[in-house]
């Protein structure tokens, strides 16, 4: 394992801002794995830290194949992690909205630019990503439809689901999108949580990534075979919303199979305690996403369901 500083900025009163990478094996740039970019992405960083541990063990046993290099960057944004602020400390900008970056530009553009320079030539790019809405996910691989996406390859992770996502205007400045434009095969990995650490789904994700590396001929690894992934696209996803605001009492968890008409959640009046709204499933399917905050604003997308027909 080689530890290297990929990007550095001097600060006035804080320790230097450093993006550190851990590299395994030597040779062609095979795989780059990126963890947290925002200050609340504990789970994303945790997954990477576990990968660093596993890859170090594998390297010591000579299990990284000759001529292949793997780079893991557990955290692109230590400054925000350390002050528990989601975005950049001073101007609240999001590094994952700054790619491909610009080294002559503003601070977060420079960070994105410096990091992207170090990681844009890898054959495969994996990012542990988080969703902007608070909730829990079924672990899945997400790929953007840029014209360069590779669904068959995404299945090689052995995750239960591969989700195809059509980029929105602001997605064009994310790492995943730009990796694809620069011809890296890019995948976003979603585990269950973001802020809170979920060791079970983290372990799943780590095993899946190692399985992928094994299938791509980068490491020798004897992990489990994984799932035969089902492919779904965000456009066909059914979004379920609550009509009124209040306390959110979820009855089902992400990953559960639900029947049409089954109760999913109740909204409870915050002052009077009575049930203000009941939410039923409009279809049969699997819950990809479930809201996980004590309260819900009116019309929040509290569940996202992959309909049964989409699954096969």
């Amino acid at each position: 394992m080689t530890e290297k500083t990929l990007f550095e900025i001097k600060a006035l009163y804080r320790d230097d801002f450093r993006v550190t990478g851990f590299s395994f094996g030597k040779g062609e740039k095979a795989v780059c794995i990126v963890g947290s970019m925002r200050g609340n992405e504990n789970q994303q960083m945790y997954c990477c830290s576990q990968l660093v541990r596993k890859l170090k063990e594998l390297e010591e046993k000579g299990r990284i194949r000759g001529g292949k290099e793997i780079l893991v960057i557990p955290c692109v944004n230590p400054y925000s992690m350390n002050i528990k602020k989601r975005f950049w400390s001073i101007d609240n900008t999001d590094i994952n909205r700054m790619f491909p970056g610009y080294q002559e530009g503003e601070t977060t553009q420079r960070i994105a630019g410096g990091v992207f320079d170090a990681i844009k030539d890898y054959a495969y790019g994996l990012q542990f990503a988080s969703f902007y809405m608070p909730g829990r996910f079924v672990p899945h691989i997400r790929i953007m439809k840029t014209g360069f996406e590779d669904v068959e390859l995404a299945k090689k992770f052995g995750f239960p689901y591969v989700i195809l996502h059509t980029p929105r205007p602001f997605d064009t400045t994310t790492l995943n999108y730009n990796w694809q434009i620069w011809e890296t095969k890019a995948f976003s990995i979603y585990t269950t949580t973001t802020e809170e650490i979920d060791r079970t789904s983290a372990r799943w994700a780590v095993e899946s990534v190692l399985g992928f590396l094994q299938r791509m001929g980068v490491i020798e690894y004897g992990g489990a075979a994984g799932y035969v992934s089902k492919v779904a696209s965000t456009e066909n996803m059914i979004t379920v919303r609550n009509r009124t605001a209040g306390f959110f009492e979820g009855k089902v968890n992400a990953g559960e199979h639900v029947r049409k008409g089954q109760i999913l959640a109740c909204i409870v009046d915050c002052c009077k305690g009575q049930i203000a709204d009941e939410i039923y499933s409009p279809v049969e399917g699997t819950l990809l996403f479930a809201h996980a905050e004590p309260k819900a604003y009116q019309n929040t997308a509290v569940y996202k369901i992959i309909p049964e027909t989409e699954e096969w």
Partner: protein
Amino acid sequence: MITTVVKVKLPVNESLEIKKMRLEPEEKSCDKRISIVTGIHGDELEGQYVCYKLSDYLQKNIGFLKGTVDIYPALNPFGIDSITRGIPAFDLDMNRIFPGSSEGDMNEYLASQIIKDVAGSALVLDIHASNIFLTEVPQIRINELHEKTLIPFAEEANVDFIWVHGASTVLESTFAHSLNTMGTPTLVVEMGVGMRITKAYGDQLFKGILHLMHQMGIWSGEDPVVKKPEESFAHKDVCFLNAPASGIFLKNVVHGTCVKKSEQIGVIVDPLSGTVIDEVKSPVDGWLFTIREYPVVNEGSLIGRILYD
């Protein structure tokens, strides 16, 4: 008349309402409507003064009003109330969610109802105040996709500068872009600095609004003389100055003045060691229309912008 544009119930004993003031004469002789909008970014307050001043003046001189004036002083009321640039609780820039969706979440719904209400105006002014970091001379920013429609309006708005910038996919979800795409001409005004009110700039824009209203036939009262703005598209270019190091920025020039090539704009100092870390010099002869206001800088932080030939 004050009306509610959109209202949603919040979880705990409160509703979120976005309101507007509609001013019109008893008998309209002009069908046109001008909309003055501000407060998308909760930390930008320069538009508050303009809305107050315009509303007060028009109500006292209502006899000269021929058409309709809609004033929306707070599109992001929670942001203004909590000194938050974006939408509090969502960590979301409100100017990245337009045109919204009536089927979407609360914020998308708010955005869609705002657009529905403003659309169809003969002209919209969306007043911003830069951010807390930078001070701007009164200027109008125009996406090159809409320059043909917007420049004629912008030239009459009594601003110092018109900046036509390149199209970018990220800007497709702004309030102004959504309206311009729908055929409602919308000017983005940037002036002053975040969290402050610069009365002189507000007075300047107020005159520009009266003049525009006069030209459009909405107003028959006083018609102020407006200044001719600098224009980025008249063989000019914009040069960006970024901080070469992290530290405390001390400016040595006056905002809005002309600077010479190699002239010192300011220094970046380290109060701990009592030393100058670096200096910022102008790479060109030009006009400094943006200057850093907030002293703390990271390497790369924007220090200023210069318009040059």
